[in-house]
Structure formats: structure tokens, C-alpha cells
């Protein structure tokens, strides 16, 4: 019963607003610490690769951002689904708050991928299944942001955005399994839940630390963003007008 009560309690923007501030602060701290450790390990601790030399080190940015680009989309789709079914305001705000972070992660994955592809493959870009489906993911993020922004009524914007997000979910397994299902220039997964990892331990540790850093960063910025969205959408309510930072 307690858990159930709590869930409903925190689905109210008024109670979530201060909590989001706290989570945001803690996540920022975690992100900075992990990023410092992760970058140090990536550049100075992790060994040179036997085939790609120092160039492979871009993996420590490329893979975490690519993972986050897919994961954030799934989280957004989850919140969008909850928002559609239960008509909760906060879940739609969460989806909206995550979108720019997801888009930037996708962009980083594509951008670093191009910088990696040129020296190793010999091409900035190829239209293989992995690269193309990741580009489609980028367009889905941009499309969601544009669609939400183009509808004035927030509730209608949420619903339209949610439908787009849910339709786009089909792209996520395509991205993930593209290197398995089709012949692609992009290599297969180095790390998988079922088959373990094909990286040396220290490389894997550095990459996982970077992943957690990206994770904490994403939580931090989406929390700050959801606070701004809450204030914007609830600006006419009494609890917002009574906030100390508003009264000042």
C-alpha cells in the first residue's frame, strides 16, 4: 500500500518539482565525478588497441552515447505510453524533458561515428543498416520535438507526440539487431548481455564508467528540464506562485 501511495504522490507535479531538484543536483555531482574518472581511464589507463592503435579510443564516447540514444528513446516511449493510458500530466512532461538529451546523444553517436569511420573504414558515412537506422532515430527525436512545439495546447501536443514516440519504438530493435540481421559495414556488438564482451577488461571498465557518467548526465539535465516544463505549464497554479524562487 505504501508503494502505491508514494507512486501517486510523486506523479503530482507539485510534489515532484522539489524532488526533481534534489535528484538533479545529486546526478550532476555523480556525472562530474564519473566523467573525470572515465575520461582519465579512457585516455591514460586503457591500453592501445592491437589493430586500430589509439584511434579506437573514440569508442569511449561513441558507444555510451549510442546506447543512451536508444535507451532514452525507450524511456520516453514508456512515459508517453503511461501518459496516454493514465492521462497523467507528469509522465508526458518527462517524455518532453528527455527529448533534447536523446537527440544530442544520437547526434554525438553519429558525429563521433563519422570521425571514427573515416580513418578506420575509409568513409565518413555509408548507407548501411546500422548507420541508416540510427539516422532515422535522430529524425524521430527531431520530429517529436517539432511536433510538440507546433501544437499550442499542451495536452494535445502530448498526445500527438506520444503516438509518434510509440510508432517509432519499432526502430529501436532494428538499430540494435541491424548488425546481426544484415551484412553491414558496421561491426557487431562488442558487449552483449548474452555473450559477454569482446574487449579487454580495462577497456570495458572505462567504457562502462563513461556509460554511467552519460547516464547520470542525462538524468541531471532532464530533471532540470522537467522542472522548467512544470513551472511553465503550472504557472497559473497557487503552489507555483507560492514557491520561494517565484515570489522573490
Amino acid at each position, binding site marked *: 500500500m505504501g508503494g502505491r501511495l508514494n507512486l501517486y504522490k510523486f506523479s503530482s507535479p507539485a510534489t515532484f518539482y522539489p524532488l526533481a531538484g534534489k535528484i538533479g543536483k545529486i546526478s550532476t555531482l555523480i556525472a562530474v565525478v564519473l566523467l573525470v574518472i572515465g575520461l582519465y581511464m579512457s585516455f591514460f589507463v586503457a*591500453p*592501445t*588497441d*592491437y*589493430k*586500430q592503435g589509439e584511434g*579506437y579510443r573514440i*569508442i569511449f564516447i561513441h558507444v555510451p552515447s549510442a546506447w543512451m540514444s536508444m535507451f532514452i528513446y525507450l524511456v520516453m516511449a514508456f512515459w508517453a*505510453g503511461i501518459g*496516454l*493510458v*493514465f*492521462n497523467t500530466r507528469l509522465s508526458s512532461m518527462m517524455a518532453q524533458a528527455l527529448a533534447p538529451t536523446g537527440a544530442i546523444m544520437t547526434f554525438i553517436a553519429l558525429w563521433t561515428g563519422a570521425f571514427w569511420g573515416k*580513418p*578506420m*573504414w*575509409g*568513409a565518413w558515412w*555509408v*548507407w*548501411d*543498416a546500422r548507420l541508416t537506422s540510427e539516422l532515422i532515430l535522430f529524425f524521430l527525436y527531431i520530429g517529436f520535438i517539432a511536433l510538440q512545439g507546433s501544437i499550442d495546447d499542451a495536452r494535445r501536443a502530448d498526445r500527438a507526440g506520444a503516438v509518434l514516440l*510509440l*510508432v517509432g*519504438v*519499432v526502430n529501436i530493435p*532494428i538499430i540494435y539487431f541491424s548488425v546481426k*540481421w*544484415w*551484412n*553491414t*559495414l558496421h*561491426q*557487431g*556488438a*562488442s558487449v552483449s548481455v548474452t555473450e559477454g564482451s*569482446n*574487449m*579487454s577488461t580495462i*577497456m570495458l571498465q572505462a567504457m562502462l564508467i563513461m556509460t554511467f557518467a552519460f547516464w547520470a548526465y542525462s538524468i541531471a539535465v532532464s530533471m532540470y528540464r522537467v522542472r522548467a516544463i512544470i513551472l511553465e505549464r503550472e504557472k497559473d497554479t497557487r503552489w507555483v506562485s507560492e514557491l520561494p524562487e517565484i515570489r522573490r
Partner: protein
Amino acid sequence: MKARHKRFGFLLVGLVVLGAAAWLVFNALGNNLSYFFSPTEVAENKAPANHVFRLGGLVQPGSLERGEKLTVHFDVTDNAHAVKVAYTGILPDLFKEGQGVIAQGRMGSDGVFVAEEVLAKHDENYMPPEVADALEKGHDKGVADMAKGNKPL
């Protein structure tokens, strides 16, 4: 039935229909989404004969010949079939015998694939050079032991 149960039902049905549609589309597209053809597919005449396609596989060790200027000849193999390739241009850094490549071009009438572009394909293994050396030595030792009639560990 509550309204939200109904909405959840719609959502579920929608997702199932969407998933089925996607599955049908990808089934129909089949191999057309593949970035390249393997030498076996070329040998079975599955690759287009008269227009540009991509050929992927490993550079057969010992097959690399450097001709005049930037022209190179090599065989691309998938360990079942091999295709002769001719290419004029700059090769990517990772290009090596035994390394994966994807060549774009068309089949010549003499059975030699004339490439316009050669890309290197690397695998998903990352390790320090010492580990790679150790693995190779272990592999060589295992092969030598097998040749001597000993069972590998």
C-alpha cells in the same frame, strides 16, 4: 471497463499491429537491406551482373599484388569462394591481408571485380597488442600440437 483500461487495450493492439507490419516489411525486403554480397553469393550468381554492387569478405592472405602506380590486385574470400578484385586508389589504413574489406564496383567480363571504392571492415574485438600476440602464439601452438598428433587442451 474503465476508460484507462480501454486506452491501454487500444495501445496494446496498436503496438501489436505495428510490430506485425514492421515484421512483414522486413521479411519482404529480406536480403535487400544487406550492405554487401559475399563471394559465395557472387559464385551463385545472386549478385547483380550488370550494375554496381558491393562485395564483402576477407582479403585472402598471400593474394595481394601491387601493380603500377596505385593499382592493386587481391582476392576477396569468405573461406568458401574467392573473387579476384582490381582497384586503383588509396586503400584505408586498416587494409591488410586477412582483414575484412568491402569493395564497391562491378564485375568485369573477365571475372575480375573492378572496384571503385574499397572500405575496411574491422571486427568487434578490442585488446592490447600483447594480448593479441599471446592469442596468436597460443593459436599457433595449438595448430602445431594438432599437427604432431597431440590433442589440443
